[in-house]
Structure formats: structure tokens, C-alpha cells
């Protein structure tokens, strides 16, 4: 397996550009300033992890990149073009369960594939089975969604997001519902898929260790309003083991910073 030691942000053109993004949610009872002046770039093939307390706008940011939500201010571009709507090149793996209960597991994975032109039925089927195999659920392809455990559903959602071969994968706390062992297995899978298929991945998590294990960069957010607080480059060789000592050093450091500003926030 290839090891990536250089930070691709410095050598490759930007895949995603976000400049001075702001977003407000206005409801009848209150106005929430979800994102405030968020600016960053993500290089092609980069793996970026977003970390921050609950409510700091991480999901909102992913939705904006996906084109499902519009920013109130600022610029968001993919491949140099302003994002005006969703597209199969930027797929989201949602935080909440989003599999379609009226389709089987296979039907769910096929859904996105059927929306791509020029793929024959056999090819679709092959791809769907390949990705189900990848997440270890080929045996369950004819099962109904409600017959799967929470973690299995997340794996199907991962297969569904991977199958149309998007160049940008937006993952919103995808492994929140999984046990530690399955997670570790999927960390390996994700890193392999990422390096083999050269995907750009934006990955939201609450778990700092997970972020350090996966990301080329870890971006820390703070809430009220959602802002970028700090950025950390993680120049560790890959594939990374979540239990390694080097990794622990980074995650301890980041956790310290995170705790620091969460506490000042509470104190203030």
C-alpha cells in the first residue's frame, strides 16, 4: 500500500474552496448563527477531518458543500465552479439513518448507480455487489433495511455513498453507532479506498483520535457562532493504526486545545 508522507494540500490544486461562508437559521422562535466567516481549501485527494462540539455547524457545512443548503454569505466552489446544487460527484453519508426502507439493501446501493448515465445493468449490479462485499454485507444484499443492526445500516450507507464513485465524499459522523472493533476495521477500509480511488474526503467526527487516525488535516470548530478555531496537519505515515503512540501524541494535543476553548466558552 502506498504511504503518503507529504501534505497534498501543498502540491495539488484545490478541489473545494470555501471563502467567508456564513449561514443563519431563522425559525419563528430564534435565529441561530450556524456558521461565521468560514474559510478553507481542500486539495484534490485530501482527507480532512472536522472536529468540534455539538451544534457548531459541522453538518450544516457538509450540507453546503453537498449543495443541499445555500450559504447566506460567501463562496463555495468545487473544481473551480460555484456549487449551486447537489451532484453525484459529491455524495453525503448522513449523520442520521437515511436508507430507503422501501428498497432492499441491494436496491439502496443501486439507487445512486441508476442515476448515472451510461452504466449497464450488469455493471451496476457488479459495482453494487463489489461495494457490499467491501463493507462485509454481501450476504445481506436481499435483506430488508429494518432487518439490519444500526452498524450494518451505516455500512450499507457507506456502500451506497461509495458505489457511484464520487470524487468528493462527505461523511457526517459515519461511525457513531459502531462498536470499536468494526470501527477499526472500517478505518482500514476507508484509508484503503481513499488511497486507491483518490477521493477527496471531508469527515466529521466527535472523536479526536478517529480524526487524527484518518485525516491529513484536522480542523477544529467552536460553536456560537460556528467558526474555525485551529488547524492541525497530521504528517503521520499511512496506513495508520488508531492505537499507535505517535497518533496518541497528536490526539492528546488536539484534545487539550479543544478542552481549553470549550472551558473558556463555559466560563465566559
Amino acid at each position, binding site marked *: 500500500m502506498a504511504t503518503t508522507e507529504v501534505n497534498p494540500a501543498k502540491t495539488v490544486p484545490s478541489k473545494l474552496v470555501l471563502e467567508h461562508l456564513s449561514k443563519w437559521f431563522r425559525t419563528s422562535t430564534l435565529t441561530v448563527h450556524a456558521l461565521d466567516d468560514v474559510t478553507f481549501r481542500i486539495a484534490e485527494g485530501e482527507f480532512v477531518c472536522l472536529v468540534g462540539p455539538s451544534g457548531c455547524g459541522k453538518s450544516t457545512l457538509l450540507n453546503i458543500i453537498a449543495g*443541499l443548503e445555500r450559504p447566506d454569505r460567501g463562496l463555495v466552489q468545487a473544481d473551480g465552479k460555484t456549487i449551486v446544487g*447537489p*451532484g453525484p460527484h459529491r455524495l453525503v453519508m448522513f449523520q442520521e439513518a437515511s436508507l*430507503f*426502507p*422501501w428498497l432492499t439493501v441491494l436496491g439502496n446501493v443501486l439507487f*445512486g448507480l441508476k442515476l448515472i448515465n451510461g452504466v449497464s445493468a450488469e455493471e451496476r449490479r457488479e459495482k453494487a455487489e463489489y461495494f457490499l462485499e467491501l463493507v462485509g454485507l454481501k450476504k445481506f444484499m436481499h435483506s430488508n433495511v*429494518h432487518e439490519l443492526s444500526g452498524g450494518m445500516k451505516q455500512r450499507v450507507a457507506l456502500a451506497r455513498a461509495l458505489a*457511484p464513485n464520487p470524487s468528493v465524499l462527505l461523511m457526517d459522523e459515519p461511525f457513531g453507532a459502531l462498536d470499536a472493533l468494526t470501527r477499526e476495521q472500517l478505518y482500514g477500509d476507508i484509508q484503503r479506498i481513499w488511497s486507491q480511488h483518490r477521493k477527496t474526503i471531508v469527515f466529521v467526527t466527535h472523536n479526536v483520535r478517529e480524526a487524527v487516525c484518518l485525516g491529513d488535516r484536522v480542523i477544529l470548530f467552536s460553536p456560537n457562532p460556528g467558526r474555525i478555531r485551529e488547524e492541525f496537519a497530521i504528517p503521520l505515515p499511512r496506513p495508520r493504526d488508531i492505537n499507535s503512540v505517535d497518533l496518541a501524541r497528536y490526539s492528546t494535543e488536539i484534545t487539550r486545545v479543544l478542552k481549553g476553548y470549550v472551558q473558556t466558552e463555559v466560563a465566559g
Partner: protein
Amino acid sequence: MIARWLAAGLFFVLLVAAWYLAVKAHIWSPILLPSPISVADYVKSAVEDGTLWEATQVTVRRLLIGYGLGILVGLPLGLLTASSRWCQDTIGVLALGLQTLPSVCWVPLALLWFGQTEAALLFVVVMGTLWSLIIATDHGVRTIPPIYTRAARSMGSTGLHTWTHVVLPAALPFLLSGMKQGWAFAWRSLMAAEIYVTILTGFGLGHLLHYGRELNAMDQVIGVMLIIVVIGLAVDKTLFAPIEQFLHRRWGTARQ
């Protein structure tokens, strides 16, 4: 499975036995409460001379046409009211209001507009079905968790594709219960119409019921009522139940 069938069979046997005993006890005049045997005799003779078969055909044909029209118009209108605020404020409010109107209330108007024709009967059936179908469809579409359409949009689904591949299937459980309710309403309105509207183009079950009353033939009245119940049950078990079972299996909503 067999035990369930046996239990159900026993229940109905007991029911008929109780009926028989009540007749034997002479509590009510046999003119008001005929014995199950005379009802069975009526049904037998009506089956043999063909009146029952013909009336059933006439009624079911009207039912299917009226119900079909109701669905054909009601489903799209329900989708419209769920997707556009303007349609909701207009068609939606109209449907909500007219839905509360018992379908028999359409009979005088239908008679004045269409006279004693087939069209009058169909009109009443459509009016009886349409509004509740619009409401059910509208409700079904509104109840869909937004995450489904978001997920579909993110995968590149738009417009018509989203409607046919996401909104409709996601709303299917609600659509089905709406269609079941619509079917019951269609029956109700057709029977009301047939009892009140005498026409020469076809003699339906409602007419048989009506003439049974005119002739004081209680065995005919009860016999026809039984037939109506049996048809209703048969349609439920053969048409709706399999779809319902499929939905329960897929969605995991079945109760064991």
C-alpha cells in the same frame, strides 16, 4: 395456522347457530327476522336464476369504474396539494370540507344534473371516493421524513424521478390506507346511490336490496347484505391484504 382457521370457522358457526336459535325462540316475527335457512334458500335461488350474479357484475363494474376514476384524479391532486402551498389553500381546503359531506348527500344533486342515468351513479361514487383520497395522499406525502428526499437529491435525483422513486414509495403505506378507506367509501356511496336512484341500464345489488324492502322480502334483504359483506371481505383479502403484508415485511412494521 390451522388452529386460527378452526377458531374463526367456529366463531361464525356459533354466530349462525345463535341466529337460528333466536328465530326458533319466536322472539321476533319471522317476517322481521327470517331464519338462516330461508336466507340461504333465497341466495340459492337467486344464484340459480342468475339475478344475483348479474346484479353483482353491474355493481362491481360501477364500483371499479368510479373508484378507478377517484384514484386517477385524487392521487395527483393529493400530490399537488402536498407540494404547492397554493394548491393546499385551494384544492386542499375544498377536499377537507367536502370530505365531511356524507356521500348520500350527493344523490339529489346527481339526480338533478344527470337524471336517472349511469352517470349519476358514477358521479356519486367518485364524489364519495375522491376527497378522502386527496386528504390521505396529501397526508402521506407530508409525513415522509425529509432525510429521504435529501439523500435522493444528493445522489442526483431531481423532479419527476424524486416523485416516482422516493416520494411515492415512501408514502406508500399511507397511500394504501387511503385507498382502502376510499374503497370503503366507494361502496358506501354506490349503495346509497343504487338504493335511491332507479335506472334501467343496470340492476345492481343496491336495487335488489331496495326491492327486497318494497316486497317485504326480509330474506332477500339479509341475503343481499351478506353478499355485499362477502364481496367487501374478498376484495380486502385478495387485493389489499397482500400489498399490506408486503409493506409490513419491507418496513418492518408487522406485528407478530
